[in-house]
């Protein structure tokens, strides 16, 4: 921040007098563009080396160069980086495939196709989920209108800015690349919703983690699922702490 302030001060102070002098000169005549006609003798004597003054002063000012690939700096907290499709605490996806993000997008960078949840494949709470989700980062201008449009807070932006690729196709991020990683204790979708809840309960954040029933459901169908053990532990802990949720 100090660097920035220093740079800002320096850059904002210097143009002002120059501008002023050029205005004065402008009154005298249009030919004296750099204002050296009104220099006195001493100024004229030092003129050839005066530029070094800036150099000398810079030697002692703080260094602003960032050693980017070697030292990564955190961005501002609200920096608009790569998008992320969030999950509810039990691992179900928040995206319902409504395409409002695609509608809001001024760069036409988002493509969504919705899907129909079924009892055997429930990816998000309620009837609908995002089956196909693509963001083309060659088009995205990181304006964040998609985030504002999202009715379920499924789409947010991370601070990740390292978005480069070798091919155009690589720059179209698919749903699996955009989905938030499963935090410990989340149960990988698809799995049924928490018993006795509806999609509104999820929107109101009244679901705080997987339940034993959900864990059992997944264990029966996908015994190899890597999220099972942590989710089961979390479910048991919360059950022991009492309270239905």
């Amino acid at each position, binding site marked *: 921040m100090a660097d920035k302030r220093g740079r800002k001060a320096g850059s904002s102070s210097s143009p002002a007098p120059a501008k002023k002098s050029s205005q004065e000169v402008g009154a005298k005549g249009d030919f004296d563009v750099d204002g050296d006609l009104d220099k006195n003798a001493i100024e004229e004597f030092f003129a050839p080396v005066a530029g070094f003054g800036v150099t000398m002063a810079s030697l002692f000012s703080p260094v602003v160069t960032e050693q980017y690939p070697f030292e990564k700096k955190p961005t501002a907290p609200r920096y608009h980086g790569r998008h992320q499709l969030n999950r509810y605490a039990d691992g179900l996806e928040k995206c319902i495939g409504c*395409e409002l993000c695609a*509608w809001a997008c001024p760069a036409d960078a988002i493509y969504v*196709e919705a899907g129909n*949840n079924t*009892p*055997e494949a429930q990816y998000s709470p*309620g*009837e*609908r989920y995002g089956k196909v989700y693509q963001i083309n980062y060659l088009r995205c201008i990181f304006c964040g209108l998609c985030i504002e449009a999202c009715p379920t807070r499924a789409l947010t932006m991370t601070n990740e800015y390292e978005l480069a690729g070798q091919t155009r196709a690589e720059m179209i991020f698919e749903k699996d690349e955009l989905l938030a990683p499963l935090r410990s204790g989340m149960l990988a979708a698809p799995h049924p919703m928490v018993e006795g809840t509806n999609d509104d309960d999820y929107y109101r954040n009244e679901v705080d983690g997987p339940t034993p029933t959900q864990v059992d459901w997944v264990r029966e169908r996908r015994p190899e699922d890597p999220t099972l053990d942590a989710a089961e532990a979390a479910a048991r802990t919360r059950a022991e702490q009492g309270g239905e949720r």
Partner: protein
Amino acid sequence: MTAPSEQKSPAPVEEVTLTIDGVEVSVPKGTLVIRAAERVGIEIPRFCDHPLLKPAGACRQCLVEVSAPDREGNVRPMPKPQTSCTLEATPGMQVSTQNTSPVAEKAQRGQIEFLLVNHPLDCPVCDKGGECPLQNQALDHGSNTSRFTGVKRTFPKPIKISSQIMLDRDRCILCQRCTRFQDEIAGDPFIDLQGRGGGTPGYEVHGLHAQQIGRFDEAILDYVGGETVTDDDSVGPMGEPALVSATAGNAGTVGPAAVDASGRPFASYFSGNTIQICPVGALTSASYRFRSRPFDLVSSPAIAEHDACGAAIRVDHRRGVVLRRLAGDDPAVNEEWITDKDRFAFPWQSAPDVLTSPLVRDEETGELVPTSWSEAVHLAAQLLTGATGGVGALPGGRLTVEDAYAWSKFARVVLGTNDIDFRARAHSAEESDFLAHRVAGASMDVTYGDLERSPQVLLVGLEPEEEAGTIFLRLRKGVLAGRVKVATIAPMATRGSTKMRAEVLPVVPGGETEVLTALAAGDSEHTQYAALAEALRGEGAVILAGERLGMVPGGYTALLKLVEATGARLAWVPRRAGDRGAVEVGLLPGLLPGGRPTAEAQARVDVAAVWGVDELPATPGRDHTEILAAAADGTLGALLVGGIDLEDLPDPALAERALAGVGSVVQLEVRRSAVTEHADVVLPVVPPTGKSGTFLNWESRPRPFETVLEGPGMSDAKVLDMVAEAAGTDLGTRTVTDTYAELAEFPGWDGPRHEAPAVEAAPTPELGAGRAVLATWRLMLDAGRGQDGEPHLAGTAHRPVAMLSAATATGIGLQAGGNVVLSTDTGRLELPAVLAAMPDGVVWVPQHSVGSSVYRSLGVGAGAVVALAPADSEVQS
């Protein structure tokens, strides 16, 4: 487009003058205020109002402030705002809409707030979101906030009321557009209002059912004994499986005749229209559920390709994929309604078996291998021009006029033959004579508007609800308005004819000739037909003859005599979209374009002049079956086959023999078919979405359409042009513009027409014990290839049954609820038997439904005698 005669107003209508928002407007007496306002560009918000449905005043959204003169002529305000959709304009009325009246504005704002009280506002999930009248009008006329803080009333959802239609009762605003459409237009009131009042909040039910739309279902209405049935292909807001409505156990007793393929009571062939007119997302379709958003879609106008009605449709597509089809708005043809087949049966055009590159048969392996267009086209040209004994052309009945014209010209100019016939169905020489004599080259005569007003319509060989849905809706509209009377010559009263309140003239198949002759005679001998014979002689009477009359010996002969005797107007109604156009451009062995008989030397000279050739083949050609027979016995050296399905042919086995036995087969097809197995060269052509062209509907009204999806594919006309070029001839049908220009060069034909058919009626067949005459026609939703890839639609088809009279059933010892077996030398067909009021000794089965393919199983068609027996097995569930 030709201006239809219905634009003329028959009599001057009395006008009334009223003032709306200070603007004076004169409208015909009887006009509703909401329509009068539209005339001066004032839009009043509305949900339940629909110009083609009767006023209901159900949603209360169109409230306006009204003053009208009283008996003394003093203009006095009505005490409360009035619904403008139910209020007829009267002279001197002064209407203030939301634009000028704070009272109307407040009333409408309040009404929107009321409607939204129980509406879930789940727009991001809802299929209607983005094109929703409730969404739009809530934004335009509603408040920003709601004062309602309670718990909304909710119902379990979604409900699959048929395999295609899904109902979400939470979103419903009870405008009753759907129930009114089904009742007033389609005549299948499969859904209705149930319950009363606002219900209870949440999911709780206290024995009082909120007012709701639905089918009667004990489980859904929480009656004791109801059995909840669920469907695992979608879920509700709690992740619970979707409810299935009105399964046989829950919907009271319905016989097997009234059950659809999914086991529910049959809904309607027009149920898709309720989705389109629903002003909220309460009714959605299973096939379009969550598939896209309106802003994704590019909408292109098109013409439905499934029947000869020429219904206007709107094709919505995204990134080269058609996602849905909606009814277009064409008041002269289909108004705003289409059949479910036109709406939902489009996946065939992008089925996995669609051909994308030309195929040729590898000489060594005998397999079809993809190849380049130039190689395939040259090989096709070589096979066709080098065939010894000539080539037969079987173009099929689904071509546009332009493509059919290319086929017609290709056969005559390149193949040098008249062996061409579009009739990939049962046909007769009498039919081709009739078509050449009466139909070909005739301009538009009977229109939809005439059907709606004709005092007497006679149907023969035509079942409009199954074979031409738009005609059915128009006739029913006329009948309900009290203007039209329908009579039908058919073996029984079908659902369709009952809904048209048709007078049924029962016949044994083959007996149509006799009835037509009796009607023509109109004498005292046939007293039962006297009233109808008289009505047909009246002004405006219309006879609609279906293509099935061609299978009745002497049918068309008697029909023409009837037309002559009564002066009634006649229209021929084929079943396929391309049939009328095919007749027009001469896809018949004895016919050249424009109704010119091949036998006339002058006609051949005319056509040869337009085509720039010296002469045209004069030898009469073979018809469809004769071509196949000639190919089977080696007389013909090659076959050029278009879009035909062997199952449609009266003798599929003959077609298979012909294709296997003939020297070479060149096929032009959209999808791989049974013909492909025998083809030496397969040239892929595009389905209607991929090309522009014109269908001629049964009225002979041109129905032009533009390309919906641009792509590399080519139409029949263009492919044939390439083959002709490879054979050294310029066909000149490369583009639709070229083809049209050439079609315009044909002068009208005023020479002698083909002679009228003169065929004797067949003698009534002698029926032995356990035998019956077969009656059969195709149902709208059946096993046709055009409905492939749409399982939700297939579930709404009628479940195939055999119908026979009680006496016939007793005669063969059939137990109630048992199956009946029809058999011939070729094979057998077993179907559940249903008793119906029909002549004894007749059995009706669907012609080509799933599990009931008459031509394939029995080898005979309508009018043939089949053996009847009860099935050995016990009653099947």
